């Protein structure tokens, strides 16, 4: 009789075998879980080839097929989808059922579904968990938006959809030269300030770097810093700021070269001049403690008039609406002129597109997905979005007749004044996120006084070279 606790070698082997037996079916079940096995081959029917035949239904949508829409619920929430776009879709196709999901975790929720071949039809791929659209497209999950741009506009069949939107939106929605994403929202990035404070103090907007610094001295006398950015969360606002300033100095080519990983693009004269100027502004007219604050803390201090200029996009006003005191009114200022021969005039402004939507190619209703995006791009759809979110869309005239808050109205005014002097978006942020994250981390070291401007440029350039040499990273290029 053996002792119950004693295990002989034979028993042990047997038990291990038993475990393997129990594990067997479980592992089998799961082997297809993480990577989805070999389900790539079958591809769903491409969007209808009868495009353009019927202006009412150019993609040949089957009204009986349901539509699944997944919306990132960030600052814009998802009411615009539920109350405006989805309502319009159900109106067009009576009796159709729409499955709506709002989530902040787009990637966590959808990545496994794409792998399992169970994709929704329309995705708002935004927020911190946004998926890598280029990688999804490589697997054939993303529908080509070419037919959408060439389809007749919903409310003006004489026009193509392409002609009803800001051209930059189509350009920025391209990946590898193909129309892949619909970047729906227009944002203005520049320097935000309190117009009421400027009015009260009798200050005017500084147009050159010298005027900018002179204002810094005046503000300092009142215990106000000239400028600040959040070092703890949102330090990339500063990187954007320096990139756009470089484009103002040397033209958009400065940013395009950086995006295209052109040799020594980070060491261009324009970018160097920009970094040098902002390094001086931060070290002389700001405070190191901002390097330890997050964006909300910094923005609150902005509302308290602790500093004058804050670099970010036009979503700022909506973001801080709850905390904004009556003594504060957001307004947008263009970047100051740094050199005597800046390529762009004072007044040049960055206009970018964001809130990235795409239609899936292997979903259950790819035609419906395109139609949904066409509805979003209609006058009515875009106006509904503007009313719900107080943000501008890429659809021309989408803000007509909508009462815009002062900050947005100011951005609109600056853009009108800028005319064609528009600063482009830096797209390597999405293409090579590693480079982007590295660049702002180094920028924080620079601003913390632990590195010189030249060392900063060298280090970031080296990282860009590494990315360029890394064959495992898919490369993108842009012409404009």
């Amino acid at each position: 009789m053996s002792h119950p606790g004693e295990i002989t070698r034979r028993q042990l082997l047997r038990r291990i075998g038993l475990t393997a037996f129990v594990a067997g079916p479980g592992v089998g079940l799961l082997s297809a879980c993480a990577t989805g096995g070999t389900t790539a081959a079958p591809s769903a029917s491409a969007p209808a080839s009868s495009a353009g035949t019927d202006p009412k239904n150019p993609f040949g949508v089957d009204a009986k097929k349901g539509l699944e829409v997944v919306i990132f619920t960030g600052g814009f929430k998802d009411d615009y989808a539920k109350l405006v776009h989805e309502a319009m879709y159900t109106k067009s196709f009576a009796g159709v059922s729409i499955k709506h999901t709002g989530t902040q975790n787009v990637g966590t929720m959808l990545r496994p579904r794409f792998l399992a071949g169970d994709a929704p039809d329309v995705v708002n791929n935004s927020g911190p968990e946004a998926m890598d659209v280029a990688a999804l497209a490589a697997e054939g999950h993303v529908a080509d938006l070419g037919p959408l741009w060439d389809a007749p506009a919903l409310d003006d069949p004489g026009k193509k959809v392409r002609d009803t939107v800001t051209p930059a939106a189509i350009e920025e929605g391209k990946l590898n030269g193909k129309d892949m994403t619909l970047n729906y929202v227009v944002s203005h990035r520049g320097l935000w300030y309190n117009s009421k404070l400027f009015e009260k103090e009798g200050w005017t907007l500084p147009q050159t770097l010298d005027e900018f610094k002179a204002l810094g001295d005046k503000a300092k006398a009142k215990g106000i810093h000239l400028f600040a950015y959040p070092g703890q969360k949102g330090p990339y606002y500063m990187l954007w700021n320096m990139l756009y300033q470089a484009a103002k100095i040397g033209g958009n080519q400065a940013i395009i070269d950086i995006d295209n990983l052109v040799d020594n693009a980070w060491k261009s004269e324009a970018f160097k001049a920009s970094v040098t100027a902002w390094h001086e502004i931060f070290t002389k007219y700001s405070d190191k403690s901002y390097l330890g604050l997050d964006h909300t803390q910094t923005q609150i201090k902005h509302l308290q008039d602790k500093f004058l200029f804050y670099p970010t996009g036009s979503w700022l006003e909506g973001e801080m609406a709850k905390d904004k005191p009556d003594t504060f009114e957001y307004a947008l200022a263009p970047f100051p002129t740094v050199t005597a021969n800046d390529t762009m005039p004072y007044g040049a402004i960055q206009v970018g597109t964001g809130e990235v939507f795409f239609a899936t190619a292997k979903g259950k209703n790819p035609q419906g997905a395109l139609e949904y995006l066409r509805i979003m791009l209609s006058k009515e759809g875009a106006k509904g979005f503007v009313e719900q979110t107080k943000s501008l869309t890429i659809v021309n005239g989408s803000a007509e007749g909508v009462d815009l808050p002062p900050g947005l109205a100011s951005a609109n005014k600056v853009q009108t004044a800028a005319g064609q002097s528009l600063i482009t978006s830096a797209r390597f942020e999405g293409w090579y996120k590693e480079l982007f994250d590295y660049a702002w981390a180094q920028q924080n070291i620079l601003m913390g006084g632990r590195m010189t401007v030249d060392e900063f440029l060298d280090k970031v350039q080296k990282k860009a070279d590494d990315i360029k040499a890394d064959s495992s990273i898919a490369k993108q290029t842009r012409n404009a």
Partner: protein
Amino acid sequence: MERLRKYGFVLGFLAVPVTLYVVFVISPYIQAFQLSLTSWNGYQANPAFVGFENFTRLFNDEVFWNALRTHGIVLLVMPLVVLALALVFAFLLNLGGGSRGAGMRGVWGSTFYKVVFFAPQVLAVAIVGVLWKAIYRPDESGVINGAVMKLGGEPIGWMSDPNLALWSLIAVMVWQAVGFYVVLFSAGMSAIPKDYFEAAALDGAGRFTLFFRITLPLLRDTIQVGWVYLGIAAFDCFALVQVLTLDAGGPDGATTVLPVEIFKTAFSYSKVGYASAMGVALFFLTITFAVLTLRVTRREKIEM
């Protein structure tokens, strides 16, 4: 027959938990090992096999060594400080009052202190992170810096000074962990028969001698367990680093830890294969630590 009954009985109990464990723990581990040999980006249906390329790249990766350095420092400092503080506090709370009447007692007000020590333990790590963000805040609104600046001092960049950030982080980890180990050691101490202390006290042993000659040796097993727990915690730090530090691992990579890097590499940079390789490396580091600790500190058990 008897044997069959015995194993059938054992199996009946084990089948469900073992299956769950295999499906939700073992199989993801196996998949991570498998993925670490591919260049999977998280979207491909058929990941490309790349052999040990991810591991060679890992060993040349500055970020990886940076993270190991952080883990090394945390591993050396944090458990030591936590265990030392917890032992002292537990001793004071349970035995430090000396013998009054029958048995040993804690210092005056020890029930109150017990609650105070344990309080951080019931807070979620994310809340701890947010709380300390306010305490470490670098401007005049920070709890510490506000006081420092009122007294005329220069503000201190608790989390933004690369020489200070890791120590600030370790301080928070210690603050949060101590309470649990105070309770653990208190339980251990109450299991030590009172006669030992009485006998020693009669022989003229002071509190100091009591602690080092009686309490400490008899708590050895508990301390060993605590050491392993804390060591494994030192390989984690995910939530605190994510919430509290400058953009999750800064400044200058001073608080970079592997779990956060794995998360970033997999989900921000879409390099799931490479992230899995990091995970495999972390797995072996943790296992090695646990085995080493248990081996090195093993010795004969004292029967009480």
